[in-house]
């Protein structure tokens, strides 16, 4: 826990405003990217890349995972691993349904 507290003290209020500003900018980028047709599947990948960047900022700084103890980091990674399980098995169904080959 002491590491975590140290990490909180490393960043002043100004830093968190900066993170918030970055998140707002990325929200506009999300909106802008949605207006541009990058073609399939790039549109989805661009949107996902922006979303992952935003999530990383929130988890790392607002949720103080960066600089936290190994146990907390492991818990955070565990949560995402479970999310991957959910996505992977749902996709195992969706991507192998009849007609999906033609879709791609």
């Amino acid at each position, binding site marked *: 826990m002491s590491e975590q507290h140290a990490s909180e003290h490393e960043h002043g209020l100004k830093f968190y405003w900066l993170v918030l500003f970055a998140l707002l900018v990325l929200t506009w980028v999300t909106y802008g990217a949605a207006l541009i047709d990058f073609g399939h599947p790039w549109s989805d990948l661009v949107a996902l890349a922006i979303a992952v960047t935003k999530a990383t900022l929130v988890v790392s700084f607002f949720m103080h995972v960066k600089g936290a103890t190994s146990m907390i980091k492991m818990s955070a990674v565990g949560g995402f691993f479970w999310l991957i*399980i*959910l996505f992977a*098995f*749902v996709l195992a*169904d*969706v991507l*192998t349904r009849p007609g999906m080959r033609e879709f791609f």
Partner: protein
Amino acid sequence: MSTQDFAFTPYPDLPKSHYLNVAYGLKSWLFTTDHKRIGILYLLSITFFFALGGLYATAIRLELLTPAGDMVQPDTYNRLFTMHGILMIFFFLVPSIPAVLGNFLLPLMIGAKDVAFPRLNLASWYMYIIGATFTLYALFMGGVDTGWTFYTPFSSTYSNSYVAAVAVGIFINGFSSIFTGINFMVTIHRMRAPGLTWFRLPLFVWSHYATSLIMVLGTPVLAITIVLLAMERVFKLGFFDPALGGDPVLFQHLFWFYSHPAVYIMILPSMGVISEIIAAFSRKRIFGYKFVALASMGIAVIGFIVWGHHLFVSSQSLYAGLIFSILTMLVAVPSAVKVFNWTATLYKGSIEYSTPMFYALGFLGLFAIGGLTGVMLATIGIDVHVHDTYFVVAHFHYIMVGGALMGYLGGLHYWWPKITGRMYPGFWSHLSALIIFLGFNLTFFPQFVLGYLGMPRRYHSYPEEFQVLHILSTAGASILAVGYIIPLVYFIWSLKYGEVAGDNPWDAVGLEWQTTSPPSLHNFDEIPVVDFEPYDYVEHEPVDRPYRYSRSEA
């Protein structure tokens, strides 16, 4: 009623100060942060919802006495089985053992004064109550007719019942589970007594750790799914309704990602209870302790990747179906490890047929039937044949009632003297355990046959040739109801008239038995130091305890 059928050596009296008499009045209960009192609050709440869910079950069984749908309208029948499922699953079974027995016992078992976050613990109960209030509102306004599974697009678009209110209720109630799960995990990690290493933990604690993992990782997905459903229903945003561009099977994936592991939220704590009871009443260490402990973790993890077996006939791809079929069979392995190890523990044990042991032995048989029929259902060829029939209804009742509920009642009987300081009458408790076992089998075994013959679930009328089996089932349900009412009566009776139990009426090992009954506010006068292995029973040693039944009475 009397407790004369015990060979009883009286204890002087209850301890002078304990958690029940440190403070009085409603406020002292509603604002308590004591894990034991919160456990009692949950006990009262879930008993109410069990009774309410039971009333719905009664109505269902009465309707099914005759082939014609002559008691209620089809739409009302839909509401009956939906509310039965919602109340029993979300408001009784999921919180049953973790929130009542887990809350009460977990800190005691690890030698802690309380859980890691006592206020979060109380917040969890309030979340439960707020969620339950929304659900009760929906119930009084006419209920919900979607089935407890809320399948879309019926629930999100077409149903004319109070789906949104129940969705809000279940969403809020989910936080109760999450709070409990977080609390248990942190408590087990951080607050174990000196010397209490991971492999010295009681299996009850291991099973609650595994359960907490599911609560924390699975419940948020249900919450998100419910929010999406509500948004589609209220704002017509297309997530699941094909007419709005959604995918109805996606709902089933998301719903079962939580709701299948939720079955393990119900059964894993029950398995923990059974381990404690079997060890105590066989006077033996649990055979293969480490394997039983790790099997809990195995069930929790593998249980997360089997949900697709609920979608075999929902247009899920055959490829995914095959994967889920194999994985579902795999989850039987750690479950079987437990059952075999319990059986091996019983082997050559000094078995005592106490009331908790009745429930534990009942659990073994019923869970085996429920589990093995689960493996049958994991086979796609069989599942396609019996999908949405009474075979499935019988299967999951053998797991949830025969497994989870038997474990809950067994645990309640085992730790009742610890919780209240008093004993219940031996004759009546034995009798009710037998009645429940017989009533349960008479209710649900005919349903296997009904389902195999083709009786679909969720129908309120049926061909005449099914009537005999339905009558048997309804008769069994009546017997089962009597079996449940008897413990309710004698538990209440015992609070005033039950003999004082003493600190360790079963002569059991484990830290919870080393403190007073009922425990003091802070559980232990001094934090215990653990220098013994789990289930440190001396085999074949004669037992000297006040509540030992004489051979003739047993």
